[in-house]
Every structure is written in C-alpha cells, then in structure tokens.
C-alpha cells in the first residue's frame, strides 16, 4: 500500500499570493493513499528539504509529490532529497503549481482548485511509479566545437588545455570570425587583430586541437557522451598538405573584382584567395562560383603558377564522421545589411554603410589601409552621421531586442573617426545610451567630452541623396522635438545583430531549441545560461544572443568548463527514461521499428532449449533509446512500455484529471 506525502511550496509569495496553499494541502490529505500533507514557505530551501526528509522518516512514506515550480526547474533537487532517505528517486514527482498555475491565474478558488487537481494527478502517477535505476554509459572524451570565432577559439583552447581532444570546425576558410574584422576594440581601443591572432595561432599549433576550416555540420546522431557527428569538409580545391601558403596563386588570378567578404564587401578579392593575411590556416580557397576554370574550363593560371603543385580542381566535398562526447555551439551572429532599410535607401546609396563596413574602413588592414574614405568617390568625409539602433528595438522591423554592442561600437567609431579626421564632424542619433559594463560609460563620456562627438537623441526617419550629399532627416527629442536635417558625407548604420540565416537549420540538425529570432536557447535564462536543453550541447558567444567580446569569451570558458566536467568521468549516468519491451507478449510485427529515430529497436530471436527459433520479438537497445515513447503508442498489444511514463502511470494520471466528489466523501 502506497504511503504518499504531499508537500506544497509557497515559493515565498510566488505561489501563495494566488493559491491557498494550506487549502491545497488539506484537500490533498484526503486523497486515498496520502498519509501526510503540508505546506511550507520555501520547500527547496534547506529547512524545506529537511521537512521532507523528516516526514519520510516519521510517516514511512513510499512516495512524494512536491507541489511547487516546474519540474524542469527543481525535479533533480527533490529527487535527491528523496534518495537521501533511501527511497528510489523516481518515487518523487513534481506538480507544477507555479508556472502552470499561480503565475498565470488570478487569486481565487478556481486557481486553488486547479493546484489541488494538479497535485491529485501527480499523486496518482506516483502511486503507479516503479523504482528505476540510472543507466551508465561511456563518455567519448572528445569535444566538437562549432564555429571558430573568438568564442569557439576560447572554448577549444580551454578544453584542449585540460587534456581533451577537440575538433574545431569553421565554415569560412579561416578561423577568427567577426573579431578578426574589427579595427580596435572598446573600451580600451586596443587593436583587435593584435590580441586575436596569437590565439588563432595557438589553436593551429595545439596538439589536442584538430582544426577543420571550410567545414560544416552535416548531421548529428547520438546523445550526451556518445554523439556521432558527420562533418562536410567543403572542397577548397587546394591540397592543404602540399600548399605552403606562398600566395603566388592569389596574385596570378586574373579575376580580381569579387566583393571581398572579409572586408564586408568594401574591397575586392580574386577567385582564389586567402581571406586575410593572418588567416589560420594560411591556405587559399577557390571560389568555385567565380572561378573562370569552373565556369568554362579555360583558365588554370593558379595551377600553372603553383610551385608546390597544390591546386586540385577535382577535389570533392568530403563527409567525415567523428565520435564526440560533447558539443560547444559557437556559431556567432551576423548583421542586417543596409538593404534591410527602406527609409535609408534599401542599400542603394554607396555612402550609407553598416558598422562592420565602417570598421573595415577604419582598419589598417582594410581596403583603404585605415584611412576613412567614402566608398562612392574615395573622398574623406567631413561630416559623418551615425545612426544607432538601426533595426534593433524596433517592433515594426521584427527585431524587438537590443543588439547590445551598438552603443559602444558607435561611440568607438565616432571617436576613431575623429582621431583620423580631426576637422571632421561626427553626429550620433541614438535612442538611449546603454553603456553597462566595466569602463563602458567612461568610454562614452570620453567620446562626448574629449572627442567632441555630437549626440542627438532622436530617430532618423529618412536618408536621401541630394547634390552628392546625404540628407539625414531626423528629430531631436531633447530640443522640443525639433525636426533636424543634416547634410552628411557619409552615414553609418549600427545595424541590428541577428542570427545567421542557417541558424534554424543547424538547431534542427543538433536538436537544440531556438527562440523566435533563431538565437539558440539556453536551458535556463539565469541558472543554466550555457547549457542547451539537449544534454551534452552547450552554447558560447553571440549565437545565443548579441554579446560583446568579453561576454563571449566568458561564456566560452563556461561552456568549456561544463564540457571538461563531463569529460572528468569515465562513465556517464543517464536517466533511465527508456522504453522496454515485453518479450512474452510481443508478436514481432515490427511496425514499431520504423518509428524509432535512434534505431534502438532490434530483432531478438527467442529460441527453445533445442535452439529452434520460436519467435522473433522486439528488443530495445538501452544505450540508444532516448525515451521518446513513440513506439509505445504504436504497440497494439502494449508490449512496449516507457519507464517513467508507463501506460499505467499516464492512464492513472488521466483517470485522476477531474475530481470525482464521491471518492472523497
């Protein structure tokens, strides 16, 4: 006979302000099988946990239902409490009376009733629970890091320095990411490449790191500790082992007018190219779409000029499968282009540029070698207008969030411009200045006070060209909403940071969740900010939300520490939420087999003593099964069941959905 204890948490005022917790405890005490029921202010606190432990001892409880927050929050906490008293932890269930009840309903009887109903449903589940024991699986101590920007680099180095193997893949020809494109960094104005490139070299030379540039994830199977990743190594048409990185091929290529991605299309590059001089690996790649040889077979200048004989036009994409135990996703972000803005000319004005493009104009490795010259005619602009929040914080644009880095880099841009063009004028249209961060506010003040940057609080409604000038029409909301029209030589848009266009499909390949903006979702916004909901996969950098460099690096180290902790064990404990088959009742129709996404359903032959096959039945591979239960719902004879969500458990839950008053009279 079950002896169940019910514990109702007030969660301070979070539950108690709308749910009458005492009454819920009282109603619950009348459920048959419930021998103890109480409520307490913070059940997850130390005294709360002690209260549960004491009750288990005193009332010889066999099962526990905690009515509190979401099980996604505290289920492990309370299962540990129960386990510490010698009860199998799977005899503890949580009834979600906070997220699903107190927070979404007004104070009143109906809300209390809903909480009581939720408790009753879970009591019925616990009554039918069975002891389950964790499954041990081996861990592959090799990490896959996806993305070779600063976050991916940092995560790779940390994991590798702890003595683990790392496979770092980067979809571009070189690692470095956006940080390699930056001129100087806020708030210190130190040179971005100077601090980044040593790290890049360290990655390339690290004995534990295998760098795969120009590669992407093709597919992913498996689970924490035991992933199998297939990586597409795109053909770069260069034999990397033969290539010595001399760069002769890039000089000889007759095609020279392709917009240069690294320079944010402000410069030009040949069809065979190394994205930038400090690239890692320093091996060129042939841009197939623009190469004359691939277009009509006529040109082979690069091949004839390669002394190492490294050009290989026949190279094919390679699919490489690797076993890894953990994955760090560090795929970063991209920015909206100027073509996203109808009001600023849909990208048709050459002198309206994005922040990243301006960054390249400021950079000494950029197309103008660090001189600020406007793209249309190469003249030095004497008046530059910066527009912050271009796209960001704008529901009409579908981007309601703050891109976070723009306030700071716009201040930096204006400052650097003033340093390079001392007689120039810099105007910044802004909504608010968000300079939260160490030395950030001071940096912005420096722009205003020392560098005479002119901040105008207001939005810009339109930019158009007139007589070779860009007319910026906006409003100054601090000066009684005065309309402002500025004749500028150049306009820099601090365009919104957004997820990559392929972020959604990558998330689907990795089975991680993502938000409505296609940024990847963390498991908990506050307490599990680096893990995803898929165990073994962590996030680093701006693929999760816009972030600046220090934040990205910090998160990368955090993701690395999660990975290292995982790799510190030889065996991994997995929740035993898996399917099991009943071999005596299974008739072996195997209609379940094709529904299993993990190929965990195997055919097992049942033999008699003489070795004759009596029948073939379904058997579940507990290492592969992930516990979705799709096969369970398919089985006509109910010969498969799902531990933790057995037929009997869910049936009992449904049976207890609505109160039947007669039972409690």
């Amino acid at each position: 006979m079950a002896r169940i204890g019910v514990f109702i948490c007030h969660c301070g005022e979070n539950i108690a302000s709308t749910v009458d917790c005492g009454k819920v405890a009282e109603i619950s005490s009348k459920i048959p099988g419930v021998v103890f029921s109480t409520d307490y202010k913070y059940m997850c606190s130390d005294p709360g946990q002690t209260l549960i432990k004491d009750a288990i001892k005193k009332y010889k409880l066999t099962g526990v239902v905690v009515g509190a927050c979401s099980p996604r929050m505290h289920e492990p906490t309370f299962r540990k409490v129960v386990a510490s008293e010698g009860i199998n932890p799977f005899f503890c269930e949580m009834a979600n009376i906070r997220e699903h009840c107190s927070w979404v309903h007004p104070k009143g009887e109906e809300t209390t009733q809903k909480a009581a109903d939720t408790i009753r449903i879970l009591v019925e589940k616990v009554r039918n629970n069975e002891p389950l024991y964790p499954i041990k699986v081996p861990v592959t101590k090799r990490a896959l890091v996806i993305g070779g920007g600063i976050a991916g680099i940092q995560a790779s180095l940390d994991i590798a320095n702890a003595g683990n193997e790392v496979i770092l893949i980067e979809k571009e020809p070189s690692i470095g990411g956006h940080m390699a494109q930056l001129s100087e960094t806020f708030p210190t104005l130190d040179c971005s490449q100077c601090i980044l490139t040593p790290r890049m070299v360290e990655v390339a030379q690290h004995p534990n790191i295998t760098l795969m540039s120009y590669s992407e994830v093709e597919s992913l199977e498996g689970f924490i500790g035991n992933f199998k990743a297939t990586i597409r190594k795109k053909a770069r048409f260069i034999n990397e082992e033969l290539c010595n990185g001399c760069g002769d091929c890039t000089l000889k290529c007759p095609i020279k007018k392709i917009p240069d991605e690294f320079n944010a299309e402000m410069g030009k590059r040949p069809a065979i190219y190394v994205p930038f001089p400090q690239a890692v690996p320093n091996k060129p790649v042939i841009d197939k779409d623009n190469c004359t040889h691939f277009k009509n077979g006529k040109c082979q200048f690069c091949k004839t000029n390669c002394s190492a004989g490294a050009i290989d036009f026949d190279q094919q994409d390679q699919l490489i499968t690797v076993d890894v135990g953990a994955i760090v996703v560090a795929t970063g972000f991209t920015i909206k282009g100027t073509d996203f803005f109808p009001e600023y000319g849909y990208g048709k004005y050459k002198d309206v540029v994005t922040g990243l493009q301006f960054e390249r104009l400021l950079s000494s490795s950029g197309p103008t070698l660090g001189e600020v010259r406007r793209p249309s005619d190469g003249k030095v602009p004497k008046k530059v207008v910066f527009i912050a929040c271009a796209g960001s914080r704008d529901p009409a644009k579908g981007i309601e969030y703050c891109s976070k880095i723009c306030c700071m880099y716009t201040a930096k841009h204006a400052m650097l411009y003033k340093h390079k063009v001392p007689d120039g004028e810099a105007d910044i249209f802004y909504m608010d200045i968000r300079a939260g961060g160490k030395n950030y506010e001071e940096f912005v003040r420096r722009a205003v006070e020392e560098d005479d940057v002119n901040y105008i609080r207001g939005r810009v409604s339109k930019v158009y060209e007139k007589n070779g000038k860009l007319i910026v029409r906006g409003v100054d909301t601090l000066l009684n909403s005065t309309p402002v029209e500025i004749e500028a030589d150049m306009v820099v848009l601090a365009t919104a940071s957004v997820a990559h266009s392929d972020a959604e499909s990558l998330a689907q390949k990795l089975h991680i969740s993502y938000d409505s903006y296609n940024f990847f979702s963390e498991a908990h916004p506050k307490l599990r900010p680096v893990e995803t909901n898929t165990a073994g996969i962590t996030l680093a950098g701006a693929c999760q939300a816009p972030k600046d460099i220090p934040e990205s690096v910090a998160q990368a180290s955090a993701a690395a520490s999660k990975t290292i902790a995982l790799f510190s064990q030889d065996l991994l404990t997995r929740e035993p939420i898996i399917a099991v088959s009943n071999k005596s009742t299974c008739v072996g129709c195997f209609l379940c087999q094709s529904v299993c996404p993990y190929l965990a359903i195997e055919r097992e032959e049942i033999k008699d003593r003489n070795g004759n096959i009596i029948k073939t039945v379904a058997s579940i591979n507990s290492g592969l099964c992930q516990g979705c239960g799709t096969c369970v719902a398919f089985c006509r004879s109910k010969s498969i069941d799902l531990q933790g969500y057995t037929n009997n458990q869910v049936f009992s839950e449904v049976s207890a959905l609505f109160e039947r008053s007669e039972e409690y009279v």
Partner: protein
Amino acid sequence: MTELQNIAKKLFDDGSINLLIGYSNNENGGTSAIFIDNSADIDKLIYNENCHQNLMVYFQKPEVKKFGKLAFVVSLPGLKSVLEIASENQIKDGDAYFIAIDKDGNPSLLQDFHQIEDFITNNQTKPPMGLLKLMEKINNMTREERWQYWTDEFSKCIKCYACRSVCPLCYCTQCITDINIPQWISTESSPIGNLDWHIARAMHLAGRCIGCGECMKACPVDIPLALLTANLNKSIAIHFGDEPGMKADYKYPLSHYKLEDKENFIR
C-alpha cells in the same frame, strides 16, 4: 476430380504439404473450413460462391503451425491478407502454398509473394456496392445523426469478440481489451466499453485492414463493423496514398511519415 482437388492432390503426393486448409460443404447446407491432413479427404474439397471465410485467420494458430508445411485455398481477400501479414513479419516467402481462386472460380497454385502481388493486380474487384452506399449514407448524415447511428449500433454489441476471432490481422497474443493493468477498455458490454472497443479495433486496423469483411459477417448482432475500417482506409488513401494488402513490402502508413504531410488541422 476437380481442378482444385487435382492441385491439392499433387501437393500431398509430392510431399510439399502436411496440411491443407480449404472449404467443404457442411451439414447446414452451407460451407465451412476443412483441415485436410491426408490426401484421402481431398474429395471433400470444394469451392463455390458461398466460400467466403478468410482462411488465412488460421495461419497463425499454433495448432495449425505445428503441421509445418501448409497450403491454403484463398480468394482475393485471403491473398491480400497474406501480403499484409508478410509486411508485418508474420509470414515469410515460402512458408505456405496458396491455391488461389480467381474471379471466374478457377484455381491456380501460387508459391511466392511476387506471384501473389501479380494475381492481386490482375484480379482486382470493386468493394460491394451495399457497403459503399451505407458508407456514403453515413457520411452524408449530420454529426449528431452519425453519433446516434453508431451509438445504436454499438449498443447491440455483446462483446463476443467474434470480429476479433475471424480477423486474419488480429493475431496479437495479447489483445488490448484483455489487458487489465491498466484497464484500457471496460470489459463489460456497456456503452462506453463497447465504444472504446470498436474505436480501438478500428484504429488498430487502420491502414492494415484488407477489407475481407469477415468481421461484419461474423457479427451475431449485425453491426456493420467493416465500415469503420473501410472509411479509415479511405482517409489513409486520401492522406497518404497507401493501400494495404497490395505489396509484401508495404510500409505501414502510421509508422512512416513525410515532411510534407498536411497539417492544416494543426494550429
């Protein structure tokens, strides 16, 4: 000796089979299944339009299986059930011989699934008009009328499970209605118990039923059971383009999916 008996005799004579299941006249003036385990009884073997029972229902019975080498007299529905249970891993190519009766009543010996598939393709018949008409009639009713219709029909059910017994696809060793932990379906012949049983039966046969109609013929209280599965198969044909009993490597539509399956009913 008829052609049918000739084929049967030859199978016994060359030792191909130990048991043949076919039809014979019974004392009530009708026909019933006959289990022939030696060639002496072959003269009782007949086939006429009254021979409708789907004899494949016996294939999975242990009492039959123990004979080893088997032969079945089967018409179109029987052959379709052969392919369906083949797709469900219940019968392998070569497990049995099939004396197939074509639409003109002529017998021929089929030995492998390939021949059966061809036979089915060449001998397609239309479902009985009566069934289609009734189906259309029900579909044209208002929802309330349909509910009334089926409540009335199901209220007659006495839970004798004859529908289950005659179905060649109801071969589970443990039927959902026999499970008591949990008690999915109330055992008594109550309105809810009856409804649950017939819905469960229909869902378990959806996309599998080959339309022999035996359930309906066997029902002692004349519930038009075959309508439920026939209508479901119609939906499945419309949604997924699948039809059971046509191929031995048939893919059960409910355990496969397409990315582009329609979902206009999902919000």
